């Protein structure tokens, strides 16, 4: 059901853990739906120099967190903001349709962490461009 890449990031997740005194934190998901992701970032000169995560969730959720944190590390905030759920899923060599929402969560977690940073800096938060533009696959929705 999962690609080798997903299994690799599930079994050897990159960037697990918390950052002490992070510059930004984003928590997304809902225990009712079985996924919670917490993303921590360190930002230096507008660049994400470190990213870590803690995730309660399925294999795809853990792999998506791992991949998303990998993808944003070293990127400018603007670049990181553009990392879409699709990019996460593609980097994982695909996710089953019903697991696409995990990549969406990862994107949202990154966005939340960035906006948390911007808020702390007294900057206006960036807006989600089009929350319905995600590539959800045939994913079901958890209404909680």
């Amino acid at each position, binding site marked *: 059901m999962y690609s080798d890449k997903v299994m690799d990031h599930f079994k050897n997740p990159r960037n697990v853990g918390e950052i002490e005194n992070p510059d930004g934190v984003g928590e997304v998901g809902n225990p*009712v*739906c*079985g996924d919670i992701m917490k993303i921590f970032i360190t930002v230096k000169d507008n660049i994400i120099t470190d990213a870590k995560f803690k995730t*309660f969730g399925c294999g795809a959720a*853990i792999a998506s967190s791992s991949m998303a944190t990998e993808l944003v590390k070293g990127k400018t905030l603007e670049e990181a903001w553009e990392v879409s759920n699709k990019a996460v899923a593609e980097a994982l060599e695909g996710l089953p349709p019903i697991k696409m929402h995990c990549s969406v969560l990862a994107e949202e977690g990154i966005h939340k962490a960035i906006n948390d940073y911007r808020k702390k800096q007294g900057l206006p938060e960036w807006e989600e461009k089009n929350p319905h533009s995600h590539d959800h696959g045939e994913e079901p929705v*958890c209404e909680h």
Partner: protein
Amino acid sequence: MEKKHTIYLDHAATTPVKPAVMDVMRPYFTEHFGNPSSIYGIARESKKAIEATRAQVAKVLGAAPDEIYFTSGGSESDNWAIKGVAFANRKKGNHIITSAIEHHAVLHTCQYLEKEGFTVTYLPVDPSGLVDPQELEKAVTDKTILISIMYANNEIGTIEPIAELGAIARKHKIYFHTDAVQAIGNVPIDVKSQNIDLLSLSAHKFYGPKGCGALYIRKGVKIDNLIHGGGQENRRRAGTENIAGITGLGTAIELATADIKGHNVRIAALRDRLLKGILETIPYARLNGHPLKRLPGNLNVSFEFIEGESMLLWLDDEGICGSTGSACTSGSLEPSHVMLAIGLPPEVAHGSLRLTLGDANTEQDVDRVLDVLPKVVAKLREMSPLYHKTGKEGGCNV
């Protein structure tokens, strides 16, 4: 990479066909392949084999052979029993009573009937998963035409008080169906003394083939056909008979019920060893389902702060096959309706692990799980934002 020895602990999902069952089935694919409706020699062989199986199944249930109808499995049996009785008795009433923890084959059928103008009461269960006979009696109305309560639950293993529930149905002259798919081989069944009018079973849950089941229909029960067509199964279930599957079902049910007591003692001992080990070594774990009134092979434990699928993936990596009440491949993100019905908070429901033991499991298997599982749980908790080593806040006091 070295392949780890597989430890199969998902017997509630399905079981392998036993060699003795396979031996019985084999000739019916190639040699005795005749269509039982035909007149010539090889066809008469098929016909005879089917009737012998009907008698085998009837004996196990305390029924008459002509009360046994072969189907394509548990889901078809459930659909047939419920829709068949509902539509055939519409003039008498439109109310059906079932429980909140039924298998989807029952629940989704009931939901379909709601769209067709029927009213369905979904009885709640207590925290151990038991249906309360008094609640059942209270739910009965003069429009009630069918009560369907499962014999034993597939997720938490709780065994319902079927005889008592059946007696209430009989008293009110309401048809009583039980989904006994998980019960066969684990509890002695007698449809007469237990007042069962219809009973579903499925061969692949007791070491028979997939795609073959049966529905017991007490003589006199008014029921519509589900699959119309040829005159097979006494004109009640059309379709060329799956002779190999049917004979396999017969041998499998005979083997599975030859020594129910011995099976219970042996399997429950293994299960209890596993449970004890888990509860002793893993904190924030709780048993789901009834502590005593449960299927001997069923163990269902919730581990707080972590999610079931990720547990299964790690276990699979170690060659251990289990299941979860978390959403997983069901296509829904909600945790199992059974877990919610027994009152588990959703996040705890997501962290449930079902291990169901079978005939081939050994103490070594159990000990292997007890070696692997604590590490898996610890690893996942380590990366869970809900788990805090100090103080361990976030625990739901369940």
